[in-house]
């Protein structure tokens, strides 16, 4: 068991006495080499789970284990790829990628060789001297992935890494991430709110319910790789996930707009489409 969350609860203080219960009794196990996606509407606490595993935050109750060791803080065995990359704008690509390696007391030459290797893996071998702002969003995410991969982490944590990219770039990066995963055999936890993304990439999709966040359902994606989003298995799963997700969405919207709001019977959707005003 690579990652193991036992009865994890998390609340954030809200105001003086109140607290916001974000995660409720999360039990989550990820096997070595597995590619798991956490899928859920925004605000369901999926990023919080990732932060707990990364050690950037600690649970209110319950325990988080990675490699059977209790997580006490950030460690290089779990590297995160953030939504906006989190590349340092004051360093060029090479310095960004070697940042963690040099911290591991690797000598500069060795680190640069390894970084080059990582950059070639994401097809950015020619951009080592560029600064992050000179790269497109997709290229920045590739650098971020390279920076995480060269650390050779046990678990790669990805927090909506492609959410800010355009559709074409995202599709390409999906292909590449699958290849990288097959090549390296890393354990990956991928966070997304995009159903198709989750289904195309992962072995297992965990659907989260919201307020408080909990794991609602688990779907196993048994489709051959490289995956095709129009594959019948994926299309079928997509409908099933969508049905489950709609319930959650409705819950969120009700909370935001009041109890009389209903997604299924909302004013716009419920208006009889055949009604042409001929009942005079």
């Amino acid at each position, binding site marked *: 068991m690579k990652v193991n969350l036992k009865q994890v609860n998390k609340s954030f203080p809200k105001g003086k006495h109140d607290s916001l219960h974000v995660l409720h009794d999360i039990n989550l196990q990820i096997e070595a080499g597995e590619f798991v996606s956490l899928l859920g509407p925004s605000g369901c606490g999926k990023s919080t789970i990732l932060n707990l595993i990364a050690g950037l935050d600690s649970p209110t109750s319950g325990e988080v284990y990675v490699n059977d060791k209790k997580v006490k803080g*950030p460690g*290089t065995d779990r590297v995160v790829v*953030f939504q906006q990359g989190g*590349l*340092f704008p004051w360093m060029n690509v090479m310095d960004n990628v070697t940042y963690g390696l040099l911290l591991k007391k690797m000598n500069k030459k060795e680190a640069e060789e390894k970084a080059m290797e990582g950059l070639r893996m994401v097809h950015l071998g020619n951009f080592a001297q560029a*600064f992050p702002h000179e790269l497109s969003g997709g290229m920045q995410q590739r650098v971020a992935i390279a920076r995480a991969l060269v650390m050779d982490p046990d678990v790669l944590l990805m927090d909506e890494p492609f959410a800010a990219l355009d559709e074409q770039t995202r599709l390409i990066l999906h292909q590449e991430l699958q290849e990288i995963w097959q090549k390296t055999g890393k354990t990956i936890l991928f966070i997304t709110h995009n159903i198709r993304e989750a289904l195309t990439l992962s072995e297992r999709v965990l659907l989260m319910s919201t307020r408080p966040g909990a794991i609602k359902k688990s779907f196993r994606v048994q489709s051959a790789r490289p995956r095709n989003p129009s594959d019948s298995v994926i299309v079928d799963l997509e409908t099933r996930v969508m049905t489950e997700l709609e319930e959650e969405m409705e819950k969120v919207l009700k909370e935001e707009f009041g109890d009389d709001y209903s997604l299924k019977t909302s004013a716009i959707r419920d208006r009889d489409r055949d009604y042409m005003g001929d009942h005079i």
Partner: protein
Amino acid sequence: MIVIVTIWEIISKTNLFPTFMFPPLLIPNDPGGVTVLSTLVNGLISGQILGATGMTLGRLLLGFSIAVVLGLIFGFLIARYKWVDDTLGFFVTALQSIPSIVWFPLAIVWFGLGNVAILFIVTIGATWTMTVNASTGFKNVPGIYLNAARTLGSSGTHLVRTVILPASVPHIISGLRVAWAFAWRAIMAGELLGGNGGLGYLLDMGRSLQSMDLVLSIMIVIGIIGTIMDNQVFLRMERSVARKWGTGS
């Protein structure tokens, strides 16, 4: 610029005011008479103005450097510890609103009339703005950089050196710029009142000798130095950071 110079020359030549009060800039009113330009050139050649400039800049750099170091340290403490923010942070805002020359009487009593007193007000004039800017910079380091660095294994002083400091560079530069302006004003006031050499002292001497040509020459020198620092040093720093980070144009 040319218009202003011309108007000045005309007023000077109308004999509305005595020449010592309103000396001409370029063309002497009577043959062999003084002009601001000749005084400036003579002052530079004889070393009188140059020496004074050197002295002033020396003091300024020393006071400014101390202020920057103090400002960075205070700023870091304020950003790092909530209780320091609640105590020192609040105090700094109050101190910042006191013009530094107000400290002068106190400085004279504490350190005597001289270098140390002037240095004191220069430092105190620049420290607080530097502190405010530095703490704003440190507080606004995007969390994603910190988190990224921490997951890559950085912590403690390494995190400060490689992430927190560089990420605050834009704020720090604007802090430097404002702090420099404050220090520059403080040293002029200090030297005017405190004597002991320097451009301010020379200004005061010009007043007592009733030679406004000297006063005006010094004002020109002050203006030139100020412009050079602002345009060549600080603006350049800002631009190079903006270029490297891809912010701005």
